[in-house]
């Protein structure tokens, strides 16, 4: 058993992304946005998505969170640019761990998946709204 198992999560690339997150900010003319709040520790992430032909054209996020959740949101938003909404829907928490490059225990699962949860929820309500209109 590692003596500093929590500290191991704080790898250099995670700390860098925490200090200088990717795709952080406000997106003008977003097609949809969705906020996720992780009440157990106070992570707050809002994802904003601009679409083109059902693919992610641009994506940004704002919020306040721990290093793990901010790094995860950075890498997720970076990774899904150009992807189809349906493909994003299939992403799992395991994909998030692979993307971020760390394994997390039950105490941090919500941190690493916060941005994915809000993105999926946003896609769901966007598609539902679209169905109503069509």
């Amino acid at each position, binding site marked *: *058993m*590692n*003596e*500093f*198992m*929590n*500290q191991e*999560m*704080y790898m250099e690339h995670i*700390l860098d992304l*925490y200090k200088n997150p990717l795709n952080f900010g406000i997106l003008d003319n977003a097609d949809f946005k969705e906020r996720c709040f992780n*009440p*157990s*520790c*106070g*992570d*707050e992430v809002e994802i904003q998505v601009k679409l083109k032909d059902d693919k992610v054209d641009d994506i940004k996020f704002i919020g*306040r*969170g*721990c*290093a*793990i959740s901010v790094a995860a949101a950075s890498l997720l938003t970076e990774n899904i640019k150009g992807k189809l909404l349906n493909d994003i829907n299939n992403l799992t928490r395991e994909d998030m761990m692979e993307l971020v490059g760390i394994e997390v225990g039950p*105490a*941090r699962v919500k*941190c690493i998946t916060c941005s994915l949860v809000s993105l999926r929820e946003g896609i769901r309500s966007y598609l539902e709204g679209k169905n109503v209109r069509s």
Partner: protein
Amino acid sequence: MVTITESNMEKLREDFPILSRRIHDKKLVYLDNSATTQKPKQVIDAITDYYTKYNSNVHRGLHKLSEEATVKFEEAHNKVAKFINSDSQELIFTKGTTESLNLLAYSLLTDLKKGDEILLTQMEHHSNLVPWQQLAKRFGLNLKFIEIDKDGILNLENNPINNKTKIVSVAHTSNFLGTINPVKEIGKIAHENNALFVVDGAQSVPHMPVDVKDLDCDFLAFSAHKMLGPTGIGALYGKKELLEKMHPFNYGGDMILEVKFDDTKFNNLPWKFEAGTPNIAGAIGFGAAVDYLNKIGMENIKNHGLELTKHAMRRLNEVKNLEIYGPLRADRRGPLVSFNLINIHPHDTTSLLDDYGIAVRGGHHCAMPTMKLMNLVGSTRASFYFYNTKEEIDYLTSTLDKVKGVFK
């Protein structure tokens, strides 16, 4: 009475088996006592004794075991009642502070009329907010709040109490800010306005002498597990004349004297409010916890808590880029300090401290509206009990430097 001194601290800590545990190969430093305290072997033994020697139901059996269990159960009632200087008829066992406050909300609000007001403060734990808020919505009542200033002190001069206010419910000690509120003074204001006065004692009863007659509160709610006892049991004190008029919260066995198909005569106090088979083991454990606290003495516990809080405030103030929330003066606080390292999320701080065997709480501490008011997402909270030492606080503050090192 046992005093808490450096020389007998080691012996006192031996009563708490968990304190010798190692976490990530380091000594456990348990500073999460506002969440729940550790249990001395006297409490654990009392619970084991019940299950191994006289387990049976109370208040009905005519056999030896039931007789013994009933005596011990009622003895626990008396001990807890005496602990806050109430009569045993006025002390109801519940599942904990949350259930005590729900009992009050359900039982009191049905008699209020549309437009009546309930007065709370901006620093309440969710358990002293959500029950009132939800029932207020259902019955068309209004919630009002006493505001707090930037240091977490209530602004009593500008409180919105008026002739529509029927209930005033206030935390004695805030579980996030640590503020000890002047409940005696608030009680006077409530009574001058003919409102009932409720005190949430979850964070005060474990840490200082609390006397319901001296406070002159109408109700007091608290939990066993924050004062050495087991989880799943707590208490509600209420003035006898009020409890007698109130509707029961739960209906069923044990709370009745006589049942007909179309009507029921309720049992005497306090049993009228304790429907169903009670948490017998929990009650006996609660009684043993109170015995232990009495042995140490609540005045001693309060003084030791204040010493630790003073020391923690001093040490934490020395840590650069750290902000502390709540009253600046240690003597206006219960034994807890909430803080953040600038630019480091409390979840990260808390989980890095865990690597060093330090157990603290990180998050919103069930006070989301208060956090929002202060524009915070959360904080790290170190909270103490009489088995904690200044050395443990020094270890916390020196480890915070290591946490900052990770983020450099």
